[in-house]
């Protein structure tokens, strides 16, 4: 946008009387214009300072966490199981727990979410049903995470008889993260030009054939972005899994491959976010480095996943030809 260049000030008003005297520049800004310019510059700096106030403290905090965590961050911190009553060893078991939670919730939420996005963008007419679906998606995104946890207790743990388990926790996460996938799928589909669909329909293809062969392949990048965002959201949440499956500690066999993948679907599981909470509030004799290390791994995981989605989005956007 043209008016974003900083250097050009608005030209002096032609109605203003020309300054008299030989030495004066006829284009010099009037007092009013000077005043405006000062105000504008001030506003710009204040707003820049506000933005910095958001970014800098957070960067400082993350840096602080990282520095505090440095002494424990190592290969074995990631890949060892917690040992010696969680005061030594690493965070492999909670890491795997988070991985499984994310994977299963993704397996449940992705198909439903993507198809719901397809429905909203391709099938739904502008009527009250569609409006209430949109409202419901927005509300689902706005329901507090702890209420999702309560829902998980009522629906999955008690009603569906899953008990407190990995499966129940994953289902709760799936419901919670559904709107993320729905919204981004809908946006991705909306970005596919209408002319693509019209061209396909003119060839005699049905609605579903068009979606399958034209719309979905052309919007896969946007859908993938949504899926990745779901992953990062599910990985970081604590409240929904607090009462539906995540526990304080799960014993892991000392050796054998079960020590690498310690969970069954009907088992309790550990999760990284929950692990951080228990280490901070309940486990005796944990050195602070362990806490910071766990926090850094959790933040790092989420940020890496998010950056991946941003990079992917940028890459695929640059390849778009329309």
């Amino acid at each position: 946008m043209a008016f974003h260049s900083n250097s050009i000030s608005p030209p002096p008003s032609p109605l203003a009387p020309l300054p008299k005297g030989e030495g004066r520049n006829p284009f010099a800004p009037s007092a009013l214009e000077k005043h405006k310019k000062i105000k504008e510059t001030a506003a710009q700096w204040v707003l820049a300072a506000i933005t910095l106030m958001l970014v800098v403290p957070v960067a400082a905090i993350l840096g602080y966490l990282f520095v505090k965590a440095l002494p424990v961050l190592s290969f074995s911190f990631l890949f060892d199981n917690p040992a010696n009553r969680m005061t030594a060893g690493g965070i492999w078991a909670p890491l795997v727990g988070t991985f499984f939670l994310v994977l299963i919730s993704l397996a449940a939420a992705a198909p439903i979410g993507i198809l719901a996005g397809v429905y909203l963008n391709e099938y739904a007419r502008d009527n009250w049903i569609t409006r209430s679906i949109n409202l419901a998606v927005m509300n689902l995104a706005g329901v507090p995470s702890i209420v999702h946890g309560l829902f998980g207790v009522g629906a999955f743990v008690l009603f569906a008889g899953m008990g407190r388990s990995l499966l129940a926790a994953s289902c709760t996460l799936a419901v919670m993260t559904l709107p993320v996938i729905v919204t981004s799928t809908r946006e991705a589909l909306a970005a596919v030009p209408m002319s693509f669909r019209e061209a396909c329909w003119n060839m005699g293809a049905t609605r579903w054939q068009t979606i399958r062969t034209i719309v979905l392949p052309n919007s896969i990048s946007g859908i993938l972005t949504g899926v990745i965002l779901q992953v990062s959201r599910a990985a970081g949440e604590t409240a929904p899994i607090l009462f539906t499956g995540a526990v304080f500690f799960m014993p892991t066999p000392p050796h054998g491959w079960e020590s690498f993948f310690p969970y069954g679907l009907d088992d309790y599981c550990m999760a990284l976010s929950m692990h951080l909470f228990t280490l901070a509030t309940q486990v005796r004799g944990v050195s602070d480095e362990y806490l910071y290390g766990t926090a850094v791994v959790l933040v790092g995981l989420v940020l890496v996943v998010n950056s991946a989605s941003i990079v992917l989005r940028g890459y695929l956007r640059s390849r778009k030809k329309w």
Partner: protein
Amino acid sequence: MSNARTAVKTSNTRRPGVAWRVVLDRAEPLIEWIIRLCGWSAIFFVFAIFFFVFWEAVPALFGGVNLIEFFTSTRWQPSSEVRPEYGILALLVGTVSVTALAMAIAVPLGLGAAVFISEFCSGKLKEILKIVIELLAAIPSIVWGFVGYMVLGPIIIWATGAAVGVNLLNGGIILALMSVPIIVSVGEDALKAVPDSYREAALSLGASRWEIVYRVLFPAAKNGLLAAVLLGVGRAIGETMAVLMCTGHAVQIPHGLLDPICTLTATIASELGESVSGGMHYSVLFMIGLVLFLITFAVNLAADLVVKGVRNEQR
């Protein structure tokens, strides 16, 4: 790209794999129904959430708890042996006060940053700032809680001389940082939605960029900005783990910024695990969940209506 190639694929009947494609085409009515069901699932889930939370709250709603006392008493003594009391007024006030404080911090910061990113930046800087804001939104709430608990608490004691570091101020700052990204991104969208012709008209009349922002953009985008604030409020009310760790979890009406408080969400998170499953305390916690659900529903509905107002205006 793939449109040309796939079009060829569908018309070329001799290529392998045609069988399942035929199946996929034949199954169109079925698939359309599946898609329709998935589309409606969001409504289903919202009702299911309401229903299941309500179901578990039934023992408390009908028979256990006096609703007037529930909303007006500040006495939260759920595990008393003599006379358990379930008054959530102090918790409500806690939630409201921490949300209000968070918004008092987050709204100026968030809208300022939105204006800066949308109107005063361009090119690379704009892209970078948007990405940074997006990443900020991704930091898990438990990490924010941890930061408030371990880092901000001692800083608050040091800076203000407060008696205790986990308090209203701590929770407010952390919640503000958590809800700023949503305010920035929705607010920026709202500013972007204002047609460029407005800006050009103002510029041609000799307005400076700052005058454009507060004379033209703010009035034009006010509904979108209001929606951004409401969504931030929704986020702040529903936040659980961060407030659980940062606010001190003390059942009392706060008298100042440095008093510890207790919120609705934190109460559920900290007490559900210890309450006897099916008991009255348990049921009352679900009732609090119901209250939270209704509050956030109302806030989101308001945001939705406000946004709809924008669309109607622009039409």
